[in-house]
């Protein structure tokens, strides 16, 4: 490469180049709103979250029980066979202690996102949620946890009807 090009193209800008309008740019703020239909499987999942229940689906051929629910087994590519209520308990498969927002601003109180393997499902099958009422330094992989639900009258059929999972 060196024998052909001594200096590669690509001019690096500094924040001052922009703020002092040494180089010009134009900007635009998009306005786009979406409403996503929950669909068949997720619709029932959300209904049951409103009732304070976690639901999974089972495929007999491969023997998998999974959450979140889906109408098909993606591994066998065939319809799922049955629905079943799962306990609202599980174990921490992995977690993070997150100190920044999505745009990398510091958070006052760190969040503890986790993948929680739900009891009664196949190995390693979990959902994404957060942990609460726990000292971040005390969180361990393999820790048993239980869902903390919103009061029934405040639930509206969303994953946030579970406030967080708490160690038991």
């Amino acid at each position, binding site marked *: *490469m*060196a*024998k*052909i*090009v001594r*200096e*590669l*193209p*690509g*001019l*690096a*800008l500094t924040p001052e*180049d*922009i703020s002092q309008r040494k*180089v010009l740019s134009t*900007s*635009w703020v*998009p306005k786009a709103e*979406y409403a*996503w239909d*929950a669909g068949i499987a*997720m619709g029932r*999942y*959300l209904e049951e979250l409103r009732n304070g229940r976690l639901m999974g689906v089972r495929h007999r051929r491969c023997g998998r029980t*999974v959450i*979140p629910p*889906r109408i098909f087994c*993606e*591994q066998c590519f065939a319809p799922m066979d049955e629905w079943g209520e799962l306990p609202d308990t599980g174990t921490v*498969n*992995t*977690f*993070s*202690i*997150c*100190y*920044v*927002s*999505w*745009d*990398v601003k510091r958070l006052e109180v760190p969040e503890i*996102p*986790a*993948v929680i393997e739900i009891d009664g499902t196949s190995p*390693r*099958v*979990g*959902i*994404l*949620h*957060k942990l609460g009422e726990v000292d971040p330094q005390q969180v361990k*992989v393999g820790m048993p946890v239980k869902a903390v639900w919103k009061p029934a009258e405040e639930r509206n059929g*969303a*994953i*946030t009807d579970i406030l967080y999972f708490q160690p038991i």
Partner: protein
Amino acid sequence: MAFRRTGLRRVAVVGAGMTKFVRRAQETAQELAFHASRLALDSCGLRIQDIGAVCLGTAPDAFDGVHMNGEYLSDGAGAYGKPFMRAYVGGGTGVFSVIQGWYHVASGLFDAVLVVCEEKMSSCLPHPQAAFLTIFDHTTERPLKPNLLWIFALEMNRYMQKYGLSKKDIARVAVKNKRNAMDHPAAQLAAEITVEDVLNSEVLAWPVQRLDVSPTSDGAVAVILASEDAAKRITDKPVWIKSVGWCLDSAYWTNRDLSYPEYVERAARMAYEMAGIKEPRKEIHIVEPYDPFDYKELHHLEGLLLAPKGEAPRLLAEGVFDRDGDLPATPSGGLLGVGNPIAAAGLMKVAELFWQLRGEAGKRQVPGNPRTGLAQAWGDLMQVGTVAILGV
């Protein structure tokens, strides 16, 4: 595994070019793509008229705020009046674009194809993460207000827990790659740092700290692929694409084994089988695994069967993956050191193998006349593995 092994033409990389990788480039996306494409053409003495088709890799439209971004870019990518294809598989795109270019030529349809990957991440404000956030499931995950870092932090922690690894074991990747990048003329974040610097850097989403992560970047890379007959006319040093492999895992990422990239292993096995490689650890001489985070390089080396599960950190500490080690990994400096303009970063890894296998990598040159190299990239919702094996 079922794929066709006969009737395909041999395909060579005959030229490569790239821009610098920078945090924010003055050039537009089209201008960056133009520079990289022209450099690639000039490097092998071809004109755009010699190119039969163009394969482009660049991020989804929301990222650039340009609907049909591939078509917008196409003029800068030399695609005027030509068959044109754009694909995007997240971080896996750079290597996937070479796979696309490969089958355009291997199939017999075209004798010379220009593969261009471009990314201008700086246009998305306040941070390109805004565009990434929509990758999370809109019903079950986005109401939790996730941060893209979560997914990597969760995977990294699972990997560490499974094998009892420490942050120190992993930080050595960042040290090695940023040091390797000191010799790369395009590098954005080349530096001599220590393991302590990584461990003392700002904690973002534990276990992920500032120096565990690659930057956001603007930049472009291009390579020229040619059929055997054409390649032999163009250059006396063709670098053959010996094989390719790619594989997608389920989008239900919380149902997966987060400690091991199964899809990378499947992609690698496809490529090894196609190339007739029986013992990857002995037959691969240089590897450019995808390293957007330091732990990912180790994760990928294991998925590529170049290290036993959970043992890549030990081999790293022993110096196996140093530029003068037994299996140099990321001699370019990688995403951690050169930079991470996503699609372009993956193609940079293929360009690096091209220069290394021709003995043209200058100060970055791996000793011992390496003959076979592997480039790998990873992306989508942590679910795609893309692999290309090059050889001379």
